[in-house]
């Protein structure tokens, strides 16, 4: 309901958001890869002063099985303060949680007790298919015209994937977002530059090419996504496409600068067909067009084929597999998850074209199986994956599962879920918080982390 003052978790600018109090709870999507028990959103205590620190203190189970919870987001955030469509007297209260496989959308209320969230509405896939024409729901962002949800497939599970809008109050499906799609067919992630009226979308593939795992022929044929699309955020028309070239496959997470004046951002490319390297690209405004430049290349690591899963054996190397990245609120540090090698790398990206590595930790990894002081078992599997940064930039959380059907392709013995936390030095540098290791309960694997009150990939801002 409407309140008298703006929600205290809304900040006009990233500069002010970075002064927000430390989060005490994290919400983590967890799924059952066997699709036998319901997936859940778990509540993890991240308050170091609490006796239950680093433990799961609550959870809400989905009403069905096989949803494959993946990414999720808030009903409202700091963009409600934007001057062109101001409506900040709402609450950041509901988590919008889609099933990537089921296409079902859950609305979860985090009040009155944030440790005991509850489901208040479930929108069935049929309704979404009928009203928006989409399925396989992925990213959620709160924005100027309501809640934006993107989908990897159309109603029939084929291309094009795209974006639709949810009403921010009733949660009714309002319909397809695009008004002129242009050449865009594949979808993966989306976000925007509110200060530059620009929507950006990236590409994975159609559901038939990933729901049973990555298909080697499609990957080696460079048929997965490799493009960025730029759109006018308000006319909803496609403006520009940038192709990364046949060598690059899987253009994933989009992290635009938080400062609305800056017209640049970072996107990760999972794999190069040339040498299995992963790369980070900066997109930027170049005159009246957008352009991209590869700014980081992370090489594959040679390894004993006997230690490699079948998919990598022939190459004799571990691919870094950069599957998530996240940018700190001050646009200074970029965190890069290398799910294959097990590295989490911190780069100083103050100059977005000249990143400098400032920190690196290793945990898990296809070959390294690096451990953590808090782990009982001395060789962890899975690797750094969904990463989230606290608003003040001092804490970084991440989990280790990528996607149910792809996990066993790279970790054939399966993945034992975990969630860890890094402490960040004032001038960069990262190290594990030895007291924070969530040994995820068997049967579920953790994926995206959202922090109470907002984090570095939940909110967007209209003021510098």
């Amino acid at each position, binding site marked *: 309901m*409407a*309140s*008298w*003052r*703006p929600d*205290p978790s*809304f*900040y*006009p*600018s990233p500069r*002010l958001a970075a002064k927000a109090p430390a989060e005490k709870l994290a919400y983590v999507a967890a799924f059952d890869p066997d699709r036998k028990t319901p997936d859940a959103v778990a509540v993890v205590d991240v308050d170091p002063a609490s006796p239950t620190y680093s433990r799961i203190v609550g959870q809400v189970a989905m009403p069905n099985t096989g949803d494959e919870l993946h990414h999720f987001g808030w009903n409202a955030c700091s963009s409600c*303060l*934007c*001057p*062109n*469509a*101001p*409506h*900040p*007297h709402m609450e950041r209260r509901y988590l919008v949680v889609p099933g990537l496989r089921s296409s079902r959308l859950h609305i979860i209320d985090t009040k009155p007790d944030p440790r005991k969230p509850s489901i208040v509405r479930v929108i069935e896939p049929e309704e979404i298919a009928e009203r928006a024409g989409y399925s396989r729901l992925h990213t959620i962002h709160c924005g*100027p*015209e*309501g809640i934006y949800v993107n989908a990897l497939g159309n109603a029939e599970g084929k291309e094009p994937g795209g974006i639709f809008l949810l*009403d*921010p*109050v009733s949660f009714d499906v309002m319909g397809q977002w695009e008004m002129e799609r242009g050449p865009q067919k594949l979808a993966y992630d989306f976000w925007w530059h*509110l*200060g*530059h*009226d620009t929507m950006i979308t990236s590409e994975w593939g159609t559901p038939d090419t990933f729901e049973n795992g990555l298909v080697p022929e499609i990957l080696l044929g460079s048929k997965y996504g490799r493009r960025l699309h730029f759109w006018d*955020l*308000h*006319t909803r028309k496609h403006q520009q496409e940038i192709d990364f070239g046949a060598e690059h496959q899987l253009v994933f997470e989009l992290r635009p600068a938080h400062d*609305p*004046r800056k017209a640049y951002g970072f996107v990760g490319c999972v794999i190069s067909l040339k040498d299995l390297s992963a790369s980070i690209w900066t997109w930027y405004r170049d005159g009246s067009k957008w352009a991209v430049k590869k700014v980081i290349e992370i090489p594959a690591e040679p390894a004993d084929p006997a230690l490699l899963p079948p998919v990598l054996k022939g190459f004799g190397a571990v691919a870094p597999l950069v599957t998530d990245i996240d940018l700190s609120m001050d646009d200074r540090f970029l965190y890069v998850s290398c799910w294959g090698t097990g590295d989490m790398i911190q780069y100083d990206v103050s100059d977005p074209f000249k990143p400098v590595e400032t920190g690196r930790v290793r945990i898990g990894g296809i070959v390294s199986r690096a451990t953590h002081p808090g782990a009982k078992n001395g060789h962890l599997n899975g690797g750094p994956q969904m990463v989230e940064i606290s608003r003040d930039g001092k804490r970084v959380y991440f989990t280790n599962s990528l996607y149910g059907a792809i996990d066993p392709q790279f970790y054939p013995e399966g993945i034992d879920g975990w969630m860890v936390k890094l402490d960040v030095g004032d001038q960069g540098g990262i190290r594990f918080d030895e007291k924070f290791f969530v040994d995820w309960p068997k049967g579920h694997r953790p994926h995206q982390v959202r922090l109470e009150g907002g984090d570095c990939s939940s909110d967007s801002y*209209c*003021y*510098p």
Partner: protein
Amino acid sequence: MSPWLMLAGLGAFHGLNPAMGWLFAVALGLNRDSRRTMWLSLLPIALGHAVSVAVVVALVVALGTVIDQRLLQVIAGALLIGWAAWHALYGHRHRVRVGMQTGLAGLGLWSFLMATSHGAGLMLVPVLIPLCLAATPARELTAAGSLPISLAAIGLHMAAMLAVTATIATLVFEWFGVGFLRRGWINLDALWIAALAATGLSLLL
């Protein structure tokens, strides 16, 4: 209260609402790091608002010459209450057509759309009816007779709105900073809805 004072007071009330433009001017000034942009933005914002009000004035005068004044009051009253209800239910849930890269023309259009969808002009009807139609007791005079008074009404309202818009925009831009929004932005939408409903009732009763 003098109708002129009412018009000026409502202009000040409209100017106070961030949704009527001072916030947009501040945002554009900050994003473009330009005090000049902030000041320049105020003009299309005030003009867009004035045009929206002028449409209502023109309708009042036009209808006032052909239908009974009481009937006009009832129509306007019902419309205001409907507007309040619509705003309470759907207020911010609409297309956003103008973004942060807008030029001055886009800003003027934005201001016109915001003032119109908020029913800014409608809120003035109880003052406009006696003021603009006073010169037409026997409905003999043409609308031309109301023109100078109508223009003066629009001008005064716009001037008051602009003065308050400029004052708040300057204070926030120069001194308070946007952190002010977190504490100082009370729910003016709720007050606005109440004002629309109260104005509607005053016309009906």
